[in-house]
């Protein structure tokens, strides 16, 4: 991936608050990239710095090799789709989309063909004469995208593009955004707090927390191999166990002593030394539940516990299981329960088991 958009050691403070703290990122040309994090993590500030509405205290921002850090927003090869769309209420849909081309004084003919082409792309040609106030939420969203894309930006920024839509429309627009991205091939940068949105929209995601980037990776890697417990909990659910590496085995396997539970064998993805304190993460759906003790073997980690609580979700059921001082979340597909005819009831004893490769060692935070 070539480095098309480069964010180079960028920091920004508001008073004593460090909104963005020494962030470095590179995004490739044509990539769909997401900045994901809870509110106040600095993702919106970072976006506003790329757009030019905020000036970084330190660091540089480059697009296609050009340093744009000092450029005002109107001179940047970047356009934004605002969270509330910020369509001009006094202009028609057509005039809204034409705004950017008019500002750059393009010839009349080019403006006409450009706007018409965009209206076609977002399938709003028959609404060209309407005012934004006469459109539905989804239509306004598409006008905002067309208004930004008509300027052929090198980077398109989308600030919480789906937050203002209802659930059903959101799913629809998700697909539509992917289609538009495929058609225009521009670099898309999404800012979102919704991990599901980020996962289905982007090639890569930067997970941000408290002004810093915790991990940059593909959606699959973030889910399967989170490096920090923040990433593990922000993307999906996770069980955490703190333990001590008691026995290093070959091929990166390590036996971990977890007080009150046992000593499972897990695959570590980093350098470990004996007697090191570490943190384990296991996703709820990686845990199998059985009524009888599973056949023991080198590659099976099994523990017993008591079902404390359960919730039925249709496609799956969630169980909260108590094992000593640990409270463990397990999630089962209906068909995957293999312990017999009956589902485990509240208060009954069950066996939890997981394969060593399904557990992850994550960074131990202070």
């Amino acid at each position: 991936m070539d480095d098309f958009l480069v964010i180079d050691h960028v920091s920004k403070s508001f008073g004593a608050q460090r909104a963005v703290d020494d962030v470095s990122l590179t995004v490739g040309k044509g990539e769909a990239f997401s900045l994901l994090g809870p509110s106040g993590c600095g993702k919106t500030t970072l976006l506003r710095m790329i757009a030019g509405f905020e000036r970084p205290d330190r660091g540089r921002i480059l697009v296609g090799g050009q340093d744009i850090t000092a450029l005002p927003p109107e001179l940047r090869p970047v356009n934004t789709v605002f969270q509330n769309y910020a369509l001009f209420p006094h202009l028609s849909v057509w005039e809204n989309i034409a705004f950017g081309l008019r500002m750059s004084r393009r010839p009349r003919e080019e403006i006409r063909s450009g706007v018409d082409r965009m209206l076609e792309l977002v399938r709003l040609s028959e609404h060209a004469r309407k005012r934004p106030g006469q459109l539905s939420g989804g239509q306004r969203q598409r006008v905002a995208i067309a208004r930004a894309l008509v300027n052929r930006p090198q980077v398109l920024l989308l600030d919480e593009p789906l937050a203002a839509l209802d659930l059903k429309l959101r799913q629809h627009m998700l697909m539509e955004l992917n289609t538009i991205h495929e058609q225009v091939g521009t670099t898309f940068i999404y800012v979102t707090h919704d991990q599901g949105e980020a996962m289905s929209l982007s090639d890569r995601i930067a997970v941000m927390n408290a002004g810093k980037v915790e991990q940059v990776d593909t959606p699959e890697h973030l889910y399967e191999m989170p490096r920090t417990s923040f990433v593990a909990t922000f993307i999906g659910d996770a069980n955490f166990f703190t333990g001590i590496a008691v026995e290093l085995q070959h091929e990166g396997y390590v036996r971990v002593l977890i007080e009150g539970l046992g000593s499972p064998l897990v695959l570590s993805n980093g350098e470990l030394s004996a007697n090191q304190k570490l943190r384990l993460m296991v996703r709820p759906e990686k845990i199998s539940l059985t009524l009888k003790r599973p056949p023991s073997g080198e590659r099976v980690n099994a523990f017993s516990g008591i079902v404390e609580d359960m919730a039925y979700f249709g496609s799956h059921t969630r169980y909260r299981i108590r094992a000593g001082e640990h409270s463990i979340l397990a999630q089962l597909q209906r068909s995957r329960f293999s312990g017999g005819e009956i589902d485990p009831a509240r208060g009954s004893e069950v066996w939890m088991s997981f394969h060593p490769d399904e557990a992850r060692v994550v960074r131990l935070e202070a």
Partner: protein
Amino acid sequence: MKRSWLPVITTLGVILFLFAPLVVLVVNSFNASRFGGEWEGFTLNWYEKLWAAGEVWESLWITLKIAVSASLAAMVLGTLAAYSLHRYRSGLQNVHHMLITLPLVMPDILMGMSLLALFVLSGVETGLLTIWIAHVTFCLSFVTMAVLGRLQDFDFTLLDAARDLGASQAKAVKKVLLPLLLPGVLAGGLLAFTLSIDDYVITFFVSGPGTTTLPLRVASMMKTSRSLPMINALSTLLIASTFLFAACSSRLQRRA
């Protein structure tokens, strides 16, 4: 369903209450009787006399000059004032807000007297300029209030959006902020215009020789019964032009 007559009766009552005096005035302007107590036959005599009364037309001209220039100045200053009041926050902002709303609640007589005291103290001769200053002072508050109301609903990310789409700061203001504030500016300006045109109390204090505005002229004409019917004729013309103005502007709005 039983129809209620109450709304119709209410409407008729309001019309009677509001327009009966106007009807009396219009009818009397064509009445040959000087005092209008009884109908003594149709005449256009008063209109002829009015036409010949040059000082009335001179007063109307002065009034229009002041009303137009004062409301234009108030529209510019009021819009700037409203923008700064809305956009910037500081400890002094509450004071500024109070200062700008003060003329709305201050009695006219107090304002007229204090302005006169100021002009006398600073040696400014009362005349067209002092009237204009006084009118801008109170018109300013009305325009500011109208524009502030408009700014309350203004989404400032629209300016970010304009900048993002390649507009310079000045262009963003011209293409996005001003068009969206315009209804407020115009409403405030219109209000200022009507207030300026019929202001009596403040103008009474700050006017000088040769700057008798229409309200001042009408008041002085009231003192002599000879010119009383002329006031009726003048008022009838003013009513007619007001209706004409309203009709034109509503037709223009429909076409736009």
